[in-house]
Structures are given as C-alpha cells and as structure tokens.
C-alpha cells in the first residue's frame, strides 16, 4: 500500500506548527492591543442613555456651574455624590418650568421617587477608589473625566482599566495641579510640569511610587 503522506509533508507539518503558533501569538496580541482596549468593550467615550438628557456642556460650560454645586461630597468622601432632584429644582422651580424634557424631574420632585440615573463610571468592585484623596492631593477632575464642560451627554473619557490608573500612579508628577486648579476644566499642564509636579508631590505628601503601585493600595 502506498504511503498516504509523501515525504515532503514532513516539512509542511513543521511549517503548520510554526504558522499556528504565529497566528495564536499575533491573534492574542491583536486581541490584547485592540479588542480589550476597544470602546466596544470598555464603553469609553460611549454616551450612556439616561432618564433625562442632562447636558454638562450646558450646565458647566454654558452657565459656569462648579462641579461641586451638584457633586457636593467629592472633597470629603469616596463617592462624589449624585445630586438629589431637589438640587435640580433649586433652579428649575423657576427656569424651564413647562419644558416637557424636564417632566421626569418635576414628577420625581412631586412623588419623592428618585431619578434612576445610569452609572457612567463603573469601576470593578475589587478596585478601591476614593474621590476625596485624589482631589485633595492635586488630581483635577478633568485629568480623569476629560473636558466634561464640553460633553452634551455624559460618557467616560477613559477606559478605567488598571493600566490607565497606573499611568498616573507611576508618574503622579505629570498630572498634579495646584489646589486652586483642581476644578478648572481648562487647566493644561504648564511647560515645566515635570518640575512643578515634583514640587507639588512633595507639598501634597504623595507617597513613594512603590506604595502608589503596590497591589494593596487599590485592591484592599
């Protein structure tokens, strides 16, 4: 009986092993580089549907409201705070009172049943995060949240993946701002940010990079 495979199939077998390995390696690389970081998976820069089309662009960029007018607990709590309907009604008791768009706000105020805002920045539960320590130690809102004053609908600007957190935890001096600039949406790092950042890190008592990137700093 003749052989099923001629002798040159030996080479083909070897090549196919190498090619398979390459495909797995390249495929895995592509998956890691593109798919895992894609906004399809991370939902970064994808606007989330909300019960009301609330525009930060209008309220912050247009009217000049400070972040803390609504997110009152950002300076002294882990959670920045989602405003109660009452805060909306501070102004909307008199402004746009007949607007159909604001009907959910008015009925929420009347019935006392809160609006069900959808969470935009949902960190995995195994990661510990505290807003107050960041804003009190020189990390500005826009460093993580982007230019919220230009967002007509809310999306998360960044992936919130661990590698993204670590960018700053490894080099905090690149983003640190003076205290009075934390809530400034327009802030851009000055030309001598490296020098200024190091000074600020000392001033804020920012811990060592070893501690900032230690597992238990974020995974408690």
């Amino acid at each position, binding site marked *: 009986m003749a052989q099923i495979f001629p002798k040159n199939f030996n080479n083909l077998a070897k090549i196919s092993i190498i090619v398979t390995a390459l495909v797995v390696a390249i495929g895995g690389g592509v998956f890691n580089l593109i798919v895992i970081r894609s906004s399809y998976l991370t939902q970064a820069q994808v606007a989330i549907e909300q019960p009301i089309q609330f525009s930060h662009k209008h309220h912050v960029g247009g*009217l*000049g*409201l*400070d972040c*803390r*007018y609504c997110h*009152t607990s950002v300076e002294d709590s882990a*959670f920045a705070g*989602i405003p*109660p309907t*009452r*805060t909306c*009604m*501070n*102004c909307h*008791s*008199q*402004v*746009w009172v007949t607007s159909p768009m604001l009907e959910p706000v008015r009925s929420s105020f009347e019935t006392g*049943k*809160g609006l*069900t805002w959808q969470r935009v920045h949902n960190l*995995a*539960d*195994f990661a510990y995060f505290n807003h107050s320590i960041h804003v009190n130690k020189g990390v500005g809102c826009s460093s993580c949240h982007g230019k919220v004053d230009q967002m007509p609908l809310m999306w998360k600007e960044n992936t919130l993946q661990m590698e993204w957190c670590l960018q700053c935890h490894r080099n905090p001096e690149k983003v640190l701002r003076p205290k009075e600039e934390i809530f400034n949406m327009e802030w851009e790092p000055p030309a001598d940010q490296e020098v200024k950042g190091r000074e600020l890190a000392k001033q804020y008592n920012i811990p060592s990079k070893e501690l900032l990137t230690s597992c238990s700093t974020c995974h408690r």
Partner: protein
Amino acid sequence: MLRVKLSIFCIFCGLFLFNACRQDMADQPSYRPLQPSNFFADGQASRPLVQGTVARGQLRDDVHLYTGKKEGQLVTTFPFTVDKTVVKRGQERFNIYCAPCHGQTGSGNGMIVQRGFKKAASYYDKEVREKSVGHYFDVITNGFGAMAGYSAQVNVRDRWAIIAYIRALQESQSGNVEPLPIETMTDFAPSGVVDPKKQNPLSGSTPKVEKKTEEKSESGGH
C-alpha cells in the same frame, strides 16, 4: 472514536476561553452608594437614617452654630472666630453655591438670574445690609422667597464662612478704606501710584495698619 474524543477535548478547551466572561469579582453582591435594590420597598440600597440618629461628634448641641439663633432670637455674632482662612473658605463656597444666582460680586445678577430666575436681592441694598448674620444663616439653611434652602449642599461651618465673605463683600462696597491694612490698600490703587511707605492716597489720612479686614466681619451684624 478518536473524533469523539477530539471534539470533547475541543469543547473543554472552548469552555476555558469563556471562563473569563464571568464577572463575579467585578460585580460583588455588596451595594455601592445609591445602587438600586429589590430588597427594600422603595427600591434603594441606601437607607435613610433612623430618626434621632446622632453620629459620634455630631450632636447638634451648639444652638448658635447650628441654628443661628439664641433663645429664639437671630444672632448678631459669629459662632466662631472669623479669620482670613474662614473668609477665603467662604469666598470659595460662595462662588460655588451662591454666585450662580447672586453673581460673584453679590449684586444679584448671576447667570441663573440672567436665564430667567427671579432676581436675587443685592447684598448692597440698605435693607439687606442691615440684617443680622443670624438672618443670613437662616436664609441659607431654610431658603427665602424663590431661593431654596442649601442645608443639604453646604455644611454649617461653610454657611458661616459664606456669611463672613458676604460681610467682606458688603464692606468692600462701603467706600470705607480706613480699616484696611496698608498692604491690602495698595491692591485697590492703580499700580505704581502708591508708595505704601509714604501715604495712603485712598483715604488721605494716615492708615491704621494694626486693624484688619477680618476683624470687621467678626463683629457680625452692622
């Protein structure tokens, strides 16, 4: 037979690939702030405080500080010493919570007023100026006219700090520069005109350097 074994093996490997899709660690059963919950009738995980709850160190026994009243009367003094830090804090809080309607200068023409809200009273009206600090505290806490109360957004100490800053604003429009320290006075004159060592061009008299602006606000109602 080999084919069956092989396909079982493939399915087994395939299962491993989908293992990563379980997110139990990322979505733990514990609640995050304001998360919805089916367990409670109102659908909220965050529970209201049981009535009468007092957190440690938060017993509101300082009536002056917490209500701006003493024996039912609106107070005319601040519950704590007002210094520059307090006024600065007041300025910051004022610009966050008050300026949208009252305007950064306190004239009552902030952005929200420009967009149709009832005009806020100017802090410089005689009637408003003459109100006691207790009155201001009461207004911030409980609201006044079209203005809603801000007790949920501004804590008590910050409310007093804001009042201190409002007093400083009012003082700034009084035209009275006498109580200002000389180094502050130069801030209000065109640059290069003032030589602080020589004279004070704004008041025309020898300035009383030892007096400070903060002390003015400390005295409370004028």
